[in-house]
């Protein structure tokens, strides 16, 4: 029989035990944290502190949600606002030994509820003054954000205008990132394998060059052109925008 022994006393908390929302309230961003697992309140002392750690773009903020016995639900997020931060919830002792970690979740990346899945994900957010923006991270599928002020923002993901004017640049940037982070000595991240798989379906038998920048640039231009051709994207865009003389 196997027994697992915890040497530190820290309890691993499930991310699903908490409901976290980052909302815009006027000019402010507010974090709302609700405990959905009543065992957490039963298993820890009421004076234990509840903290949320947010990390994005080399910036760390700690939000304090009071104690388990006297918790706050809403806490203002210091500006500038976070978009898709890495999050971790930590419950720590407030009495001696102060700071002792009683429980913590793993870190996860916060995504607004409207993220659409796929090898390229789409979401809306306040990205003014830009209308769209590509977010690349080492271990997650790329996300294209549309500015939330755009009417029916998420529907732009399938608009012929976006497909013709922005998507080719998105594809190039994603593959440039993969190219710069790929070498023969290490395995690619899962999401990169999916993108490589997509390119192999698009241009069978033509693998992405590794280590040769010029060969790569030629390859990615060929890939984008094939994609545009296969889906007849220029024709759809012209149909949408109107044909000139």
């Amino acid at each position, binding site marked *: 029989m196997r027994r697992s022994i915890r040497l530190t006393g820290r309890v691993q908390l499930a991310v699903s035990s908490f409901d976290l929302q980052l909302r815009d309230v006027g000019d402010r961003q507010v974090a709302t944290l609700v405990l959905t697992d009543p065992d957490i309140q039963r298993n820890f002392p009421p004076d234990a502190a509840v903290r949320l750690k947010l990390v*994005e773009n*080399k910036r760390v903020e700690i939000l304090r949600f009071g104690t388990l016995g006297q918790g706050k639900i809403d806490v203002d997020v210091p500006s500038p606002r976070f978009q898709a931060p890495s999050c971790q919830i930590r419950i720590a002792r407030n009495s001696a030994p102060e*700071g002792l970690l009683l429980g913590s979740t793993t870190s996860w990346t916060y995504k607004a509820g409207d993220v659409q899945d796929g090898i390229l994900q789409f979401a809306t957010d306040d990205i003014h003054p830009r209308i769209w923006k590509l977010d690349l991270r*080492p271990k997650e599928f790329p996300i294209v954000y549309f500015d939330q002020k755009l009417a029916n923002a998420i529907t732009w993901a399938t608009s012929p205008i976006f497909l013709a004017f922005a998507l080719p640049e998105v594809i190039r940037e994603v593959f440039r990132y993969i190219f710069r982070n790929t070498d023969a000595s290490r395995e690619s991240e899962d999401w990169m394998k999916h993108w490589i798989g997509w390119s192999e379906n698009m241009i069978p038998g033509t693998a992405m060059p590794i280590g040769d920048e010029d060969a790569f640039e030629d390859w990615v231009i060929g890939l984008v052109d094939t994609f545009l051709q296969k889906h007849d994207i220029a024709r759809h865009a012209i149909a949408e925008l109107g044909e000139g003389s």
Partner: protein
Amino acid sequence: MTPQSYATLYQLTPQGLELFTRIMHGSAPEESLALNDRAFLEPLPGTGPFEARDYGSARELAAAVCKSLRERSPHELADRTGLWAWLTFVLRDCLFAKSGGIRKVGEMHRWYPSPPGDYQKAQRHLVRMPTLLYASLAEDADHLLLGKPSVHGELREQLTAQQDMLNRNFQKVARQLYYVDATDSFKRGAAGSGGGSARRLGTIRKQLDVTWDMTDMSAGQILKLLPPEFDAYR
């Protein structure tokens, strides 16, 4: 380098970025990126004058960039690849001085800003990372911004490698351990791999993080948790 003044900060356009990349790879001449051609660059609204010159330290450079950014937050602009690339280009003689007529630019992440969410590479950019550190930590980043802007440095690499290290209290601890105010320098051995070094501090921080919530502890509290191998630096 010959100092050059600019009325504002600029950002390279996609066309400018492509040319910048080719220049840095050595496949296009530097003169081809004309700094008055709006096809290649555009002013960044809300920013002030900037002087491209030889800066004595990464801290001095970061302070100058922050001053030019005025009210604009470098964190909000962290993903403006065009801005950091423009700064890199106009500062190329400070960051990658020619030697024997040849400019060696080294690893790409030093001059081409990786996506800021890339916690493994983003800290290597020679302009953006010092600027973000200076903006977030001010004097608590002294130990991270020592030395010439062209040198990323072992201490910065070791003490920014983990996301949780970018916490003011943790950096206060590191500053207290390794930085000498009087001489504006590191203590001997800080950049090595022996007991009490910055590399060891990174390892120990990870171990302590499993037991302690250091994110909300003062520098004094964190110092007390460190094992005796750090005594020589206290």
